[in-house]
Structure formats: C-alpha cells, structure tokens
C-alpha cells in the first residue's frame, strides 16, 4: 500500500493574468482515496487542480505536501510523489506506446544515470495495469481514443507516485471507455492505495466513483463530503442552475441525478418539484 500523505491547500486565490478564478479555497485531500472535483464550466475546477499540481502559482495562500510548501520542494522530488495528467497532452509524431510510457520515468533519473532495471519494470507494470502491453511497440497514432487515454494514464503510472491528479481523464470518450477508465482508476486505488484527485464532467459518474467530492461554484468551494452528503437537488440547482431529482442509483449505493427539463415531464414529478415555473 502507498504511504499516507497530507496534501493541503490553505486559502488559495489563483487565476490567469489579472483574472482571479479561485477565491480563498481551503481543502485537504483525503489520503488513499478517490476525490472528484465537480462544478459547472468555468467554475475553476481545472484551475484548482492545476494550482495544486503547481502548474499555476497561487497569488495568495499556500499548498503543502506533508507540511512542506510545494514550491520549496525540488520539482523532481515532488514529481516522485505527485503525478499529473493534464487535459490535452501532446503526442509527438511517430512515438510508440512504450516510449511514451517510459517518459514518465523522468523524475527518477539523475544526470548521469541511464535506464535501470527498475525503470523497465515500472514501465512494464504500468502498461500491464492499463492493459496496453500488447500495444507496446505500436505507434500511438494507430490507437483508438480510449486506448490512447490508457497509454497516457500508464505514462503517469510509470512515474510511480503516491498521489495522482487527472484533469478530465474521460473527456471525448464514448461512455464504454469512460466507465472502463474509471474502473481501472478504482482498481489502482483499491490495489495500491494511490490517492487520486480528478476533475470530472459527468455528475453521475462522479457520484458513482468518488469517495469524496469537492463541489465548486464560481471559484468557491461550496460543499464537500461523500457523494450522498454532497449531491442534493439544491446543490445541483446552485452550481449547475439545473432542476433535478436526486434518486438512489439503482445499481450502487451512490446518489444519481435525474435532470428535469421543460419537456417530457410526467405531471407527478413536476408537482413534486416546486422549483419549476
């Protein structure tokens, strides 16, 4: 099992150029759990992830790993504990799966040291976990979107970090592959205890797969807790401006959001929901 870490953001304010996107957010990432950040487009969920992964420097506040401010940890040392898969990484032309996954080993290398047995083992293990070993020598360009995303996650796994941040790892994928990726990440968490923090778009998949949810609205943290504690129709109304009914997910213990639009409503569900005009 991966060791326990405390990872905290204390009253961080951050943004791009002069535009402030995050306002005074304080969170503590539950160790060895899957946390999902939810919120509407533009609410700052990606910005929060990027700030915690030190891609963006907060204008105020502090982010710390095991009590040490992350900007005081040498980048390579931090990269051995904290991995990141951003939303749109670049695929170099003509790169093979094994080569790309192997680039995740960068933080474990020093100036003079070449590739060791440990490096090859880490790459083989990462490819095995993501079930892409059979593609090792294939060109990334030949793979489907779902397979490609598995390769990127394997690259992050080869980094062998205790904490893994993923920015919308299921975007642009068919529902089959979204579930496949989330299942694999859950395996990873259950088997190795890897702390996973990700931004997800799909509210129902978030409710299903999260141990802990952070709900953001307009750059502020509005709720956090287990999916059952956080996902309520009033919260969904607040952060997505959507009327809905929250029911128990018929296949799991998590809540499930059923949106209510202006059409196709049985008269009974409308009367149950007084918010509708």
């Amino acid at each position, binding site marked *: 099992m991966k060791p326990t870490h405390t990872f905290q953001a204390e009253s961080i304010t951050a943004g791009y150029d002069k535009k402030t996107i995050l306002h005074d957010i304080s969170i503590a990432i539950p160790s060895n759990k899957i946390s999902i950040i939810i919120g509407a487009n533009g609410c700052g969920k990606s910005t929060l992830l*990027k700030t915690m*992964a*030190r*891609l963006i420097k907060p204008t105020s506040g502090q982010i710390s790993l095991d009590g040490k401010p992350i900007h005081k940890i*040498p*980048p*390579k*040392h*931090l*990269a*051995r504990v*904290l*991995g*990141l*898969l*951003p939303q*749109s*990484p*670049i*695929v*170099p*032309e*003509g*790169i*093979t799966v094994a*080569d*790309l996954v192997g*680039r*995740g080993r*960068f*933080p474990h*290398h020093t*100036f003079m040291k070449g590739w060791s047995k440990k490096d090859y083992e880490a790459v083989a293990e990462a490819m095995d976990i993501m079930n892409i070993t059979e593609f090792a020598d294939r060109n990334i360009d030949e793979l489907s979107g779902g397979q490609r995303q598995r390769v990127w996650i394997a*690259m*992050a796994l080869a*980094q062998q970090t205790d904490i893994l*941040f993923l920015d919308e790892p299921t975007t642009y994928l068919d529902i089959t592959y979204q579930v496949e990726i989330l299942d694999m990440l859950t395996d990873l968490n259950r088997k190795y205890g890897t702390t996973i923090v990700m931004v997800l778009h799909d509210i129902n998949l978030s409710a299903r797969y999260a141990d802990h949810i952070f709900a953001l609205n307009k750059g502020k943290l509005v709720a956090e807790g287990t999916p059952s504690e956080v996902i309520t129709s009033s919260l969904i109304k607040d952060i997505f401006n959507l009327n809905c009914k929250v029911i128990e997910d018929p296949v799991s213990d998590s809540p499930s959001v059923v949106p209510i639009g202006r059409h196709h409503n049985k008269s009974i569900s409308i009367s149950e929901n007084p918010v509708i005009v």
Partner: protein
Amino acid sequence: MDGLFHPEVLTHEANVVRQRIVRTIFCLMCGAALGVSGALMQSVTRNPIADPSILGVNTGASLFVVCGIAFFNISSANEYIWLAIAGAILTSIFVFGIGSMGSGGATPLKLVLAGAATSAILSSLVVAVMIPRSNVMDQFRFWQVGSVGSGNWDSIATFVPFLIIGLLIAVFTGPGLNALALGDEVAKGLGVRTGTIRLVAALGAVLLCGAATALAGPIGFIGLLATHVIRLLIGPDLRYIIPMSALTGAIILTVSDVLGRLLGSPGELEVGIVTAFVGAPILILITMKAKMRAL
C-alpha cells in the same frame, strides 16, 4: 599519404591531401554542429521546421560579421565567432518574439513568416553595409555563400570548444526535452523546469549554429534535413536523435561539399548553394505535411 605524417614533404600532392583532410574534418564538425542545432531548435520550439537558416538566425550572424568587417576591421576567426554568436542570439530572440505575437503562440507558419521577414530585412542591411566598400565585399562574399573550403587548423581549433560545449548541452538537456515534447503541463508534472531547460537548450543551439556560421558562412537546411531523416528512421526519442543528427548532419554536409566540387569542376560550387538546392524541396514537403497534421 606520406605528406600527412612528414611535414617536410612539400610536393603538390602532399599539400592537396593535407588540405583535403582539413577540409573534411571541418565539414564533419560544421555538419554535426548544424545538425544538433536544428534538433535542439525544433525541440525548444516544439516546431518541426525550426532550423537556423529558416528562422533567420544565420542572417543575423551574417549581419554582425559584415558589420565587424566593415566598421571594426575584424578578420580573424576568433573575432568572427563572438560576433556571429551575438548576432545569432539577438536574431533568435527577435524572431521568436515576433512569431509568438497574437493568438496561438509560435505556430510553425508564423515562425517561418517571422524568420523570412527578418531574414529579408537583415539581408538588405548586409548589402547596404557592403556595397559601398569593395574590400569588405571581397572578404565577405566568399564567407557569405557558405564555404567549408576556407577552413584551416586554426579555425578548427577555434571551433572545437564551442562544438564540445554545444554537444554536452544537447546531451544533458535531451531527457528534459523528451518530456517537454509531451507539452509544457506534462513536463512540469514530471518535474522538468521548463523555462530553464528551454533557455539552456536554446543557448546550446545558438552556440553551435553561431560558431559554425562564423567559420563556414551561413549554410542552410542541414539541421532540418538531418533531424527529419533521423526521425523517420529511429523515431522521436531525443536521446538518440541528438547523436544521430550530429552524425547525419556531418555526413550530409560532407557529401554536399564533395557534390559541389564534382558538379562545379573545374572550379567548385559552394556547399551552401548545394545544401539550399537539396534542402528547399524537403522543407516544402515537411511544411505541407505539418500543415496537414495541424488541420
């Protein structure tokens, strides 16, 4: 061959052999420097068509050299080299500055346009400085076309430290540049200091191309040709691309030089002309391919 080991032998043949050996060594070194310089520039800018000649860096080096000749009576390789490197650094900053303006950052197309425009302005400045000074023109004309025939042991000795420093920089930045190829965010996630590695690698590229340009004149397209041939053959891993593009650059330049001597006999065609003839069509092909990928 005897002449090589017995400096007292002064026959015509011995002299020719000696000169040819110097010329070949010089060719190999310049080609290696230009090949690696191209590989570094392409990685730093994450741009497949970055090359000292296309980005106008060579022309910047030329302008500084011609000004040195015209205004400061400079004529030694040692002094050329610093002027050329200063010119190369200033021009690359200028071209990337212009190319990065507007939306989308430094796209391949914008960089080529910025490089071409800068190159055109600098070339006309070179001519403007040179035309009224016939003595400068003679000295400069030969240098300008790009000739490895002017190489001698002195210029090789001047070149060696720059070549070694440049190659060391390339080898040490290779793994970081590999990570940078996956995008800045991935690279930072892997613990790469992206700003530092870009700066150091760019410095290496400019040292290599500035030194080669100072001594042999602006020879174009070697960096572009070498790295693209190598990428096709061995893929995108810079740990292999860097040494292999040094080797390929050295071979391409040496072969071009021999070709220039054969085609131009009884005189010779300057090697810069030969590489331009070979390189231009390849550049067009690559740009078309790059554009299609971008679309």
